[in-house]
């Protein structure tokens, strides 16, 4: 069998979805952990140093970025194919559709993966444009220990003091929460890692994971909006 025919099979496609989905989830965990440094009450020193440390990884950073982009693209590509195969497999619609409950895990989350995924697809480039590239403007700088580094803390603080941006972030993270509510356990099931003994525990763990991860990303903008003032001297800052 060729690798192509494995990829073309329904099983291969779901294995790719699962591996890329888990990779993206791991990234989000690391990303959130880093962002929690925003809570350190030191006017952003810790967070800015973290940003500078990431930057100092040099070429390795580009390897990680390239990998993430590849995972993202493969995930989306497989998602579209799963979705179109489903549309092809049932053309006539049922007049009534009811879940039989019991062991069913068919939920709003499981049925709207393509929608919640599409929201993330729109969000990610906007997010990179806003924070990664400071909307094309030169980023604000700050002196720490005699080195001039990017003041990403004040970029965040400036943006998250604007109601529109906060609402947009919070809303998107709710979609992320729904995506992961089904995605976490689904990925393990797609890899064949399930057994009847573990399924209930892992399904519950999926809820906890989605709640904590999405919750963490929701709390950040809300915290800045209500408790941290926008930096005054953010000349050329975000927005």
């Amino acid at each position, binding site marked *: 069998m060729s*690798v192509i025919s494995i990829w073309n099979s329904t*099983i291969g496609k779901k294995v790719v979805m699962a591996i890329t989905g888990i990779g993206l989830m791991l990234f989000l965990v690391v990303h959130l952990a880093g962002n929690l440094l925003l809570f350190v009450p030191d006017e952003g020193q810790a967070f800015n140093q973290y940003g500078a440390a990431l930057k100092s990884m040099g070429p390795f950073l580009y390897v990680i970025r390239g990998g993430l982009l590849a995972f993202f693209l493969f995930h989306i590509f497989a998602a579209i194919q799963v979705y179109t195969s489903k549309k092809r497999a049932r053309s006539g619609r049922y007049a009534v559709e009811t879940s039989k409950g019991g062991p*069913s895990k068919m939920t709003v989350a499981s049925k709207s993966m393509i929608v919640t995924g599409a929201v993330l697809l729109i969000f990610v480039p906007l997010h990179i444009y806003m924070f990664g590239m400071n909307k094309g403007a030169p980023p604000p700088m700050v002196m720490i220990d005699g080195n001039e580094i990017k003041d990403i803390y004040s970029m965040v603080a400036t943006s998250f003091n604007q109601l529109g941006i906060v609402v947009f972030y919070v809303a998107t993270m709710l979609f992320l929460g729904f995506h992961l509510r089904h995605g976490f356990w689904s990925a393990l099931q797609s890899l064949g890692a399930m057994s009847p003994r573990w399924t209930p525990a892992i399904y519950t763990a999926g809820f906890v994971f989605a709640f904590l991860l999405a919750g963490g990303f929701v709390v950040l903008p809300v915290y800045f909006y209500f408790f941290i003032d926008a930096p005054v001297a953010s000349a050329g800052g975000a927005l």
Partner: protein
Amino acid sequence: MKVNVKVWRQENKDAQGRFETYEVVNLIPEMSFLEMLDTLNEQLLKRGERPVEFDSDCREGICGTCGLVIDGMAHGPKRACTTCELRMRNFNDGSTITVEPFRAQGFPVLRDLVVDRSAFDRIISAGGYVSVNSGSAPDANAIPIPKDIAERAMDSAACIGCGACVAACPNASASLFVGAKITQFSLLPQGQAERHKRAVRMIETMDNEGFGNCSNHAECEAACPKNISIDNIARMRREYMKGSLKAV
């Protein structure tokens, strides 16, 4: 007892179908759902109308021939139950019941509630058997199989091939059926010789028959009259990956 049935009528494979609503009277709660449809058909025949066509054979939950989507649920509202075993006492007197055929590209509607499920036969032909010559039947205790493994294989072998999993799946995926068949063989010594070839060939056929991919909704397990667990799907995936990677 009486009910109104809103039932799918379709002349043939290519015709446009539509719903018709009929009142069915003189029912008793102990009647099975199929006996209710028999009663409806007697009424229709008396009036000189074409009876509603549906499939059934054993009428005791073992052949897998009967299968209808009743009020949006494959085999109706009762769990672990085939349409033929479903009783009218599960419905309220005077209620309206919607009855539709299984809807999937892999199961084209032939007439009214009858669908063509031969895609399942073709999947079985692709590997759902043991073709190595096993000689005459050995002593039952000559092949030691631990009790828990035998139980698990038996749970999978309980699948009656009714297709309710496909009907209930939002993606019209046949994964539960194929998973049950692959699992049953993969657990037993007799299935080892062709284990991986079987998985790859059955899944290739499943994919070619136009069933959708599995999104892990697990609605199939809820609809299955034999309570086949989606663990069978997880196992099928492991079998396929092992089999296909070996052959790369």
